[in-house]
């Protein structure tokens, strides 16, 4: 069994509509030093270790979890 954490973020050059809302809301709460806020995804997967798991996870990201045109990603694998 392996636990996989995938972090998906909108490419930095794209306007992050949710991030914009978060930044404004933080400022409204009185946190004035906020330079930037971006909202991405954190996907946790528990999966049988195929022996080829790095490659598998990368493929899962490209086929499903991530839109490579608009999103960046990275992942960590904790083999258990």
């Amino acid at each position, binding site marked *: 069994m392996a636990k996989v954490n995938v972090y998906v973020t909108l490419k930095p050059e794209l306007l992050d*509509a*949710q991030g*914009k809302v978060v930044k404004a809301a933080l400022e409204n709460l009185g946190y004035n030093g906020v330079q930037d806020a971006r909202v991405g995804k954190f996907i946790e997967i528990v999966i049988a270790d195929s022996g080829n798991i790095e490659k598998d996870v990368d493929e899962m990201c490209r*086929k*499903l*979890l991530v*839109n490579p045109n608009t999103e960046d990603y990275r992942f960590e694998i904790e083999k258990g």
Partner: protein
Amino acid sequence: MKFGVVRFPGSSGDKDAYFAVRDVTGQSVEYIWHESTDLSGFDCIILPGGASYGDYLRAGGVAKNSPIIDAIRKFADGGGRVIGIGNGFQILCEAGLLPGDLLMNNTARFRCLPVKVRVDNNTSDFSGKCCKGQVLSLPIAHLTGRYYCDSDTLNVLEKDGRVLLRYCDESGNATEQANPNGSVGNIAGVVNERGNIAGMMPHPERAVEDILGSTDGVCILQSMVEARL
């Protein structure tokens, strides 16, 4: 001419597309389950609006792996006509059948309202019955409708006249004010290079009868019927 309306789990605009084709254009139309891989006999495929797979993960991001997508790709390679509306547009972009992608509205909220769009290309299979520059009133209803593509792609789209529809004001000016979701270049709909696949966020199938407040969607459906195969 025979239309097919693809049903993905979670599609809900399928019925709207079906009724619009049947009742307004009078053409024959059938639902196609997303697991089907046989499109023989169909002339035109509609990917309808709604929320396939609940729009979970990314709008259209799960549906793009459905078996029907490969069939659609082959169908289009063979010259078949394909249109994606709303969620269908998102799926076509996710599947790489159309350039660009749809991102969350810049308002970060779902927006449902009638908008004005200008027909910028009236030579496509999807707009031949419209006039160039004609302003249509069509409803939108989406959270993920902000069209985005990189600047190279945008230049190509503009140069090749592949922008089908653009958000505009009453007089046809594509102003920032008239852009409901922050789409690049006010783009509301595009066609592929070959001109047989189109996608749009506004819903022409919801504007096909006077009783619904607008019949401006009819010219798009009728264009598809009357374009040469």
